């Protein structure tokens, strides 16, 4: 690989700082006692404690999945802190938010108060495991939208949470989902009532702060009949040398004619250039198109984490429902990503679309893994998948593992894949037209990702473009 390319991909991580806020932290280790502690800290109802314990007991019987195309040392679940909360305070307004915390957000380029107002975005901030500020709640409440932390939802709207939690990702769904179900500490809850179109983009910024505190968020979004919502999730974590586990669960439920758009820009710490440190991101995201004509669309830009294991999926149960997955996954240095989607067609005339763009640089390994399953009742189901890989330099790898299972003869399934490489010849071509390497790489990458970026809300698209630039640009010459 040319030295220009090496410089480009060796940009240091800019979000590596630790906020000094006193934490209320549980001792390391996982047991029924830990779970009871979490549940009691959060004053949870009995049914939720039961949900957790059931999940935990199931988790004990399960084995860590070995099939992803990633390598990492065995995780010692007894070495993890499962509960860590900033000191509890009653916050009436943004002014009462810990200034250290606000500073952190500013360093991240997310001055939430101004930015939220300017952009008309309501930000439900997750800082470690407890939600410390919720804005625009009032305005949303006027149209009947509930947008709060999941802990608050458990207290204020237990019937809604109880009805939907675990309905899309059952507690025993997979190893990490079971773990999350047992120990989740916080997350976001969003409920859009019948016929309501959410008047603004809803946004959550996640951030893992306490060293070695695994973060287990749980997000639940329910769109009732005819409701629509667009939800943005942004993630950044500071730099630590030991790996941090992140095992979130996100559940989306769309009823008749409802539409949910879920966008993620993930920039967690990926480890240093030698592969030390970084986040292990083992996430279960799944949407259920429960009603007829419902639609769920996932858009993700994954640039961080040492390991990413993530398959935002759609279960297309309702007739005529639509599932979409748009993804850009960038890996650099020693990052490993095994990501993709599952589209499970159950209802008639269901349609799904998969656009996946993988970019590998440095010595990283980037795999797309996708499942398209057409059930026996899914008359006239259609899927289109496109999986493109781009290699930057010659030491990285890209793989595609598409699984297609069709049990109905009336289905149409299309799969396209390409692999390309940014090499010296392309960069020289740009240079010979006066364009330097940084701009050239940025232009090539943005061109490559265009189909996905177009799906992001405007603000996020700009952020994502910058982020990819940051990840790949560096001090050239």
């Amino acid at each position, binding site marked *: 690989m*040319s030295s*220009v390319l090496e410089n480009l991909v060796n940009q240091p991580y800019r979000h590596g700082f630790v906020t000094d806020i006193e934490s209320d932290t549980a001792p390391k280790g996982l047991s029924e006692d830990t779970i009871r502690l979490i549940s009691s800290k959060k004053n949870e109802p009995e049914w939720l404690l039961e949900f957790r314990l059931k999940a935990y007991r199931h988790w004990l019987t399960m084995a860590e999945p070995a099939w992803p195309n990633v390598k990492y040392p065995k995780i010692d679940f007894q070495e993890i802190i499962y509960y860590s909360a900033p000191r509890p305070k009653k916050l009436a307004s943004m002014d009462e938010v810990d200034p250290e915390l606000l500073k952190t957000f500013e360093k991240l380029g997310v001055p939430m108060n101004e930015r939220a107002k300017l952009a008309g975005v309501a930000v439900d901030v997750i800082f470690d495991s407890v939600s410390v500020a919720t804005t625009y709640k009032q305005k949303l409440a006027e149209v009947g939208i509930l947008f709060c932390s999941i802990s608050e939802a458990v207290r204020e709207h237990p019937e809604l949470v109880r009805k939907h939690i675990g309905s899309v990702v059952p507690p025993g769904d997979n190893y990490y989902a079971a773990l999350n179900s047992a120990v989740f500490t916080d997350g976001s809850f969003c409920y859009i009532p019948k016929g309501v179109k959410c008047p603004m983009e809803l946004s959550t910024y996640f951030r893992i702060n306490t060293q070695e505190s695994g973060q287990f968020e749980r997000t639940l979004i329910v769109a009732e009949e005819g409701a629509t919502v667009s939800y943005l999730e942004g993630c950044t974590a500071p730099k630590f040398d030991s790996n941090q586990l992140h095992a979130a669960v996100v559940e989306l439920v769309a009823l008749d004619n409802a539409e949910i758009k879920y966008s993620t820009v993930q920039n967690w710490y990926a480890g240093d250039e030698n592969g030390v440190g970084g986040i292990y991101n083992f996430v279960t995201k799944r949407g259920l198109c429960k009603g007829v004509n419902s639609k769920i669309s996932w858009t993700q830009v994954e640039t961080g984490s040492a390991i990413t294991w993530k398959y935002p999926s759609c279960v297309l149960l309702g007739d005529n429902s639509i599932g979409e997955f748009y993804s850009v996954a960038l890996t650099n240095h020693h990052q490993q990503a095994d990501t993709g989607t599952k589209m499970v067609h159950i209802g008639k005339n269901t349609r799904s679309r998969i656009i996946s763009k993988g970019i590998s640089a440095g010595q990283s390994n980037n795999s797309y893994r996708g499942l398209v399953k057409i059930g026996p009742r899914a008359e006239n189901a259609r899927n289109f998948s496109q999986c493109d890989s781009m290699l930057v330099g010659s030491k990285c790898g890209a793989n595609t593992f598409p699984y297609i299972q069709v049990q109905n003869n009336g289905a149409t399934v299309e799969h396209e894949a*390409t692999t*390309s490489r940014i090499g*010296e*010849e*392309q960069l*020289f*071509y*740009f*240079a*010979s*037209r*006066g*364009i*330097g390497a940084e*701009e050239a790489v940025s*232009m*090539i990458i*943005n*061109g*490559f*990702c*265009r189909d996905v970026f177009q799906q992001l809300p405007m603000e996020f698209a700009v952020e994502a473009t910058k982020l990819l630039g940051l990840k790949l640009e560096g001090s050239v*010459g």
Partner: protein
Amino acid sequence: MIRADAKVLLEVKGLRARVSGVEILKGIDLKVAAGEVHAIMGRNGSGKSTFAKALAGHPAYEVSGGTARFEGRDVFDMAPEERARAGLFLGFQYPVEIPGVSNSAFLRLAYNTVQAARGREELDPLEFDDYAREKMKLLDMDPAFLDRSVNEGFSGGEKKRNEILQMALLEPRVAILDETDSGLDIDALRVVAHGVNRLATPGNAVVLVTHYQRMLGYIVPDYVHVMEGGRIVKTGGKALAEELEARGYDWVRAAA
């Protein structure tokens, strides 16, 4: 057009260059003045393309000796993009495809970068579109080219036209066109040659690198240089190209 008082734009002395450690250029001398058209001819492997790429700064070509000055500046002191901004242009023999990057965005970035370096005004997308369409007429190109990805799925002839379009947009002082005639049918050759002729002015210069004489039927060179074994072994006028065509490269080798 040769003028005794013309300003020297490019002066190469004793240029040596290596590829993967093997010396390909073994001392090239070439002086190009404003208004002139030079043709560099030679059989495959004689070093013609290496010469073009070494001047443009391809990273695989290592300059191991000699000098090159472009309008008084040391060429080898400049990064490839700086050479382009200064007005040295390379028309590629095999232009690379750049999937996903629209030709219009690419051309506009190149244009604005070069304009900015020259202290001239940059164009916004709408203004640039008008400007590019005007230049495309010169090459009989369909404006739909602007919406396609750079060189992706272009036929050989389309790629070459796109190269000359870039030359038209960037208005270089010295354009080195590497085998621009290869892969062109006779109609396309005529269009491309016509475009190059229109772009050749008393203030700039064109260096055609070519294997065959056929392009020189349309673009009349002031000088013809014959390369052999990494050196220019013979220099003459237009007639030399015709003689080469008739007698073959072995004749030069024997004469040298």
